[in-house]
């Protein structure tokens, strides 16, 4: 059946009541040249035909590869409870209901998610989420611009290049200056960043662990930024925050994260989850929705959307952002994931991932001609320099069912032989051994 609620007779009746002859007449105001000539859509198919078409497409997916690919997105283990709970009909919807009189369950789930994210990142407030980590970072930059009334951002080149491209494209027409401070062999150049911050700087943007996997303590850098009245923004990898000094502990004003590593499958690039947290001082600049806990007239606990004067439906021209979506279902997955694992469980996942990565780094650098590209502490990801072009090495191992990692030259043209390698708790010692042996063979 077509999902159109009106019969042809009803349509005719409605048109007659309005006083027009056809549905096209309703669009007469849109001139011919502005109307799409064709949507180029094929004819409809039956459910059975659609299913077999999609199954044929899905069968082309290769799902049995051993992957050392990270670069901001990680294949962590997802407890079965995450699917079981989040697929319940009450939650499994594209539409998020916010009416407090009808949706206490949804609102409480978002509130609990916000609480979990603030604890994870050591911050004071969180919103209900945005599309993904890159969007969260752009929104964070705009928070800083509004707060400081300045229009310059100092950005570390060791920030995920995908995010840097997003920042550039989102700010193209906003007269915001992005000053990029080069990385130093994969290390975040703290001194360089410090020197680049001036009185005109609205925001400092760094990442921990950075794109190359290396770990920093930005406490001093953030203090120096605060002296110049700049807002400090850190993009964080949430799983790692259980074992690292948190953005909150370092003095970040805003901390954002890609929440994919918390219970979301890699799933070919999305949907993901943009985590946004900030200090109480910044909360009025926070875009999107925020759920708060309050009491009704009888003193019973209730959950409601709060600080809504920032939102489009209250004062459109004054809204902090035009973002009006959150990723509720993905946020719920993140919440169930951290609850199912518990604090110790997430910590354990982080520690195991780090342990495996260090084992992997030892095995790879034992190969002739392979060396660590980045000195200093790293988490579950590290960069190596190969004796050959990284794309070549990746191609050779792909033939044998192993995804070796991310060739850095895609974004850093001078690092042709640079390969970014990631491990998670799912990476086995055996896989690391095979990977090292294969790479050794491929480099001969």
């Amino acid at each position, binding site marked *: 059946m077509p999902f159109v609620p009106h019969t042809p007779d009803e349509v005719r009746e409605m048109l007659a009541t309005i006083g027009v002859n056809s549905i096209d007449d309703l669009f007469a105001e849109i001139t011919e040249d502005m109307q799409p000539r064709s949507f180029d859509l094929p004819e409809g198919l039956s459910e059975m035909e659609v299913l077999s078409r999609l199954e044929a497409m899905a069968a082309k997916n290769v799902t049995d590869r051993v992957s050392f690919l990270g670069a901001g997105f990680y294949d962590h283990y997802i407890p079965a409870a995450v699917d079981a709970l989040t697929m319940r009909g009450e939650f499994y919807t594209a539409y998020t209901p916010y009416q407090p009189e009808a949706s206490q369950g949804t609102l409480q789930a978002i509130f609990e998610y916000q609480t979990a994210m603030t604890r994870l990142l050591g911050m004071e407030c969180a919103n209900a989420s945005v599309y993904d980590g890159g969007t969260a970072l752009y929104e964070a930059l705009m928070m800083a611009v509004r707060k400081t009334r300045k229009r310059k951002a100092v950005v570390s080149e060791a920030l995920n290049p995908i995010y840097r491209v997003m920042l550039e494209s989102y700010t193209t027409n906003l007269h915001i200056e992005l000053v990029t401070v080069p990385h130093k062999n994969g290390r975040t150049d703290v001194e360089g960043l410090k020197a680049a911050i001036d009185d005109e700087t609205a925001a400092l943007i760094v990442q921990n662990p950075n794109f190359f996997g290396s770990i920093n303590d930005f406490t001093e850098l953030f203090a120096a930024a605060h002296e110049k009245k700049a807002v400090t923004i850190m993009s964080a990898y949430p799983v790692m925050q259980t074992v690292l000094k948190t953005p909150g502990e370092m003095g970040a004003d805003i901390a954002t994260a890609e929440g994919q590593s918390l219970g979301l499958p890699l799933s070919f690039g999305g949907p993901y989850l943009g985590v946004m947290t900030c200090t109480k001082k910044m909360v*009025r600049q926070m875009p999107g929705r925020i759920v708060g806990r309050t009491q009704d007239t009888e003193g019973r606990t209730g959950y409601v959307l709060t600080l809504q*004067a920032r939102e489009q439906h209250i004062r459109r021209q*004054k809204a902090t952002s035009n973002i009006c979506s959150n990723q509720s279902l993905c946020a719920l997955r993140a919440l169930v994931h951290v609850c199912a694992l518990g604090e110790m469980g997430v910590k354990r996942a982080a520690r195991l991932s780090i342990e495996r990565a260090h084992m992997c780094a030892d095995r790879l650098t034992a190969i002739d001609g392979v060396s660590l590209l980045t000195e200093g502490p790293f988490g579950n990801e590290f960069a190596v320099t190969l004796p050959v072009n990284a794309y070549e090495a990746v191609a050779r191992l792909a033939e044998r069912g192993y995804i070796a990692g991310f060739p850095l030259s895609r974004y850093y043209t001078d690092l042709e032989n640079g390969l970014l390698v990631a491990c998670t708790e799912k990476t086995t010692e055996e896989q690391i051994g095979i990977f090292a042996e294969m790479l050794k063979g491929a480099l001969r």
Partner: protein
Amino acid sequence: MFPEDILYAKSHEWAKIEGDIAIVGITSFAQEQLGDLTFVEMPAVGDSFNAGDEMGSVESVKAASEIYCPVSGEIVEINEDLEDAPEKVNEDPFGAGWMVKVKLSAQPEGLLDAAAYQKVTEAEAH
């Protein structure tokens, strides 16, 4: 009812003129209409406004509303206490709840005295 020594704007701001400085806030009537204030968004020191320009906003438990600068000039001081204690505007709108000090760039024009403003509020309250 309303203090006699200050001037009023129809949009419910008040200005107390002291030499070339005007102290500006919102009236007792305005804060009553808004209810408990939760946030005052203020301009920055150094910002310049013409009389009638929007210079900030107030949020209460039930509404958000713009604040208009009743005089022309440059902001020389803001009441930083309101950042953490917006309720001061409810408690003492003509005193501790002041919002900004403006260095006048022109003599105030078109503002009302207490009696005229009283009439404005009576008309609005009905």
